[in-house]
C-alpha cells in the first residue's frame, strides 16, 4: 500500500504541474460549492442559531439554558436516550448471539451466508414500511394479536401497547440487530481457533476462555458497535412518526413539530434542540471509531 502511494505521489513531479493543478481545482469546485451550500452552511446555522437571540441576533447562552430547564424537552431527550440505550443493548446482544451462533455455533454453512444477506436487507429496511409491518403484526387488530387472543391471551390486557416505549423498542430492534451482525462478524472471524485450543490445553474452562481470551478481544468491537447502534436509534424519525402518527415525545419528533408549527414558541430553542442531537451523534460516531480501531489490531 505505501509503495503504491509513493509511486502515485511521485509521478506528478515529472510533468508541468502548474496548469494541470488549476484545472484540477476547477474540477473539484462544484463539489465543494455544493457541499458548502447544501450541507456545511445549513448545518452551521444550527450552531450559530443555538447561541443567538432569535430577535436581536446577539450572542447568548439563553437558548441552551432554556433547553436545559424545560421539563418537556428534557423528557424528550430522556425518552430518546432510554429507547436508544435499550435497543442498542438489546439489539447488540441479540445481534452478537446470532452472529456467534451462525459463525461458531456448528450450524450448517449456508446459515451464515443467508444470515448476512438477510441482515443486509433488514438493516436497510426501516421507516414507514417497517412501522406498518409491525402494525400488521402487533397492533390491536394485528395478525399475531388475533392469534394470541384466539389462544386466550390478549397482550393488550397485560399492559402491552405497540405505540409506547416497549412497542417502539421492539420495532427499533428490527433495524438495530442486523447492523450488529454485519459489523461484529469480521471480529468473530478474527477469533482464532488456536486460541480456544491453547486455552483448553492449558486447562481453561469455557468460562475462563470467555473471561480471559474471547471477551477482552471482542469487547471493544461490541461496545463500539453498540455506541453506533445508540446513534442509529437516536437519530431515527420516520419509524416512530409512522407508527404513532407523531404522538410520541422523542427529540426527533419534537424537532419536526417545531419545524411545521413553531410549537416551542421560540426559534432559538429549536436550534438548541437540534444542536444537542448533533453533539450526541458526534460523540457516538467518535466512540465507535475509537473502539473499533482498538479491535482491528487483532484482526490482521
Amino acid at each position, binding site marked *: 500500500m505505501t509503495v503504491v502511494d509513493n509511486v502515485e505521489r511521485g509521478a*506528478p513531479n515529472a510533468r508541468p504541474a502548474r496548469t494541470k493543478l488549476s484545472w484540477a481545482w476547477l474540477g473539484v469546485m462544484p463539489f465543494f460549492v455544493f457541499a458548502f451550500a447544501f450541507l456545511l452552511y445549513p448545518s452551521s446555522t444550527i450552531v450559530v442559531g443555538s447561541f443567538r437571540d432569535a430577535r436581536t441576533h446577539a450572542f447568548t447562552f439563553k437558548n441552551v439554558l432554556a433547553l436545559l430547564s424545560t421539563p418537556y424537552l428534557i423528557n424528550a431527550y430522556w425518552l430518546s436516550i432510554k429507547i436508544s440505550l435499550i435497543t442498542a443493548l438489546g439489539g447488540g446482544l441479540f445481534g452478537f448471539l446470532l452472529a456467534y451462533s*451462525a459463525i461458531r455455533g456448528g450450524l450448517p454453512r449456508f446459515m451464515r451466508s443467508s444470515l448476512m444477506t438477510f441482515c443486509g436487507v433488514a438493516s436497510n429496511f426501516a421507516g414507514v414500511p417497517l412501522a*406498518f409491518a409491525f402494525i400488521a403484526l402487533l397492533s390491536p387488530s394485528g395478525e399475531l394479536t388475533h392469534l394470541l387472543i384466539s389462544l386466550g391471551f390478549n397482550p393488550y390486557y397485560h399492559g402491552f401497547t405497540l405505540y409506547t416505549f416497549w412497542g417502539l423498542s421492539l420495532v427499533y430492534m428490527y433495524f438495530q440487530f442486523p447492523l450488529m451482525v454485519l459489523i461484529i462478524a469480521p471480529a468473530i472471524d478474527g477469533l482464532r481457533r488456536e486460541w480456544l485450543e491453547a486455552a483448553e490445553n492449558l486447562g481453561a474452562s469455557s468460562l475462563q476462555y470467555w473471561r480471559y481470551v474471547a471477551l477482552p478481544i471482542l469487547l471493544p468491537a461490541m461496545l463500539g458497535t453498540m455506541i453506533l447502534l445508540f446513534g442509529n436509534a437516536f437519530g431515527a424519525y420516520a419509524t416512530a412518526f409512522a407508527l404513532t402518527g407523531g404522538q410520541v415525545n422523542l427529540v426527533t419528533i419534537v*424537532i419536526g413539530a417545531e419545524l411545521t408549527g413553531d410549537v416551542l414558541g421560540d426559534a432559538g430553542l429549536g436550534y438548541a434542540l*437540534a444542536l444537542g*442531537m448533533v453533539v450526541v451523534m458526534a460523540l457516538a460516531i467518535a466512540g465507535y471509531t475509537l473502539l473499533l480501531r482498538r479491535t482491528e489490531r487483532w484482526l490482521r
Partner: protein
Amino acid sequence: MRRGGQVWAWFWMILGILYFFLPLLATFLFSLRAKLGVLSFQAYEDVFTDPDFIYNFGYSVFWGVLTIIVGILLFVPTAYLIRLRLPQFRSSVEFITLLPFVIPAIVFVFGLVRTFSQPPFLIVDSPALLVAAYTVLAMPYMYRAVDTGLRSIDVRTLTEAAQSLGAGWGTILFRVILPNIRVAILSGAFLSFAIVIGELILAQYLVKPAFAPYLAYLIQQKAYEPAAMAVISFALTWAFLGIIQFVGRGGAQAQIGGGR
C-alpha cells in the same frame, strides 16, 4: 460444551428467523384481507388503480433518477481528481461525505428549511432544493461506491494512455473512466434510489409529493392498501439489493476477463 453450544445456536437462529419473517408475513397476510372473509389481491388492485399512489410514487421515481444523475455528475469528477491530482484534499472530502451520517436527517432538514426560507436564499419551495438534499443524503453511499470503483482500476495508467492518444478531459472522464467504474456507479445508484424511495423526512418537510409521506398518511387512514404498499416496497428493496449483488458479481468476473 459443543453439543450444548449447538442447541443454543439453533435457538438463537430460530428466534432471529421468527423475528425477521413474522412482521413480513403478517404484512403480506394483512394485504390479502381487503375482501371480507376471503383472501384476495383486492388491495393490490386498489393500490395500482389509486391515482394518488401513481402520482406520489411517480414523483419518487423522478426524484430518484434526478438524484442519481446529479450524484454522478458531482461525485465522479471529484473522486477522480482527488485520487489523481489533489490527494491533499482526500481527508477533507472524506469528512464531508461522512457528515450525513453524523447529522440526523431531521436536523439536516431543520437547517435546510431555516436557511432557505428567509431572504436572501428564498428557495425552500424549489424542487431543486429537494434534489440537492436527496443528493446530500445519498452522498455517503454514492461517493464511496465511486471511490471504491476508482480504487479497483489503475486511474493513472488509464489517464496517461488516453492522454497520449490525444484524448481531452471530457473524453477521459466519460469514455474511459466512467465505463470502467460502471459497476460501482450502478451499485451506488441503486442504493441512492432505494434511499430516495424510502425517504420520509425531506419530502414531508419540503412539502413535495413522494411515496413515503403518502404511505405514512395512508397508514393513518386505511388498513389494507398500506399493507399492499408495504409489501411492494419490501419487494423493491429486495430487488434492488439483489440487483446490486448480481451486477457486482457479474461485473467482477467481466473485469477479470476484460483486463487480460
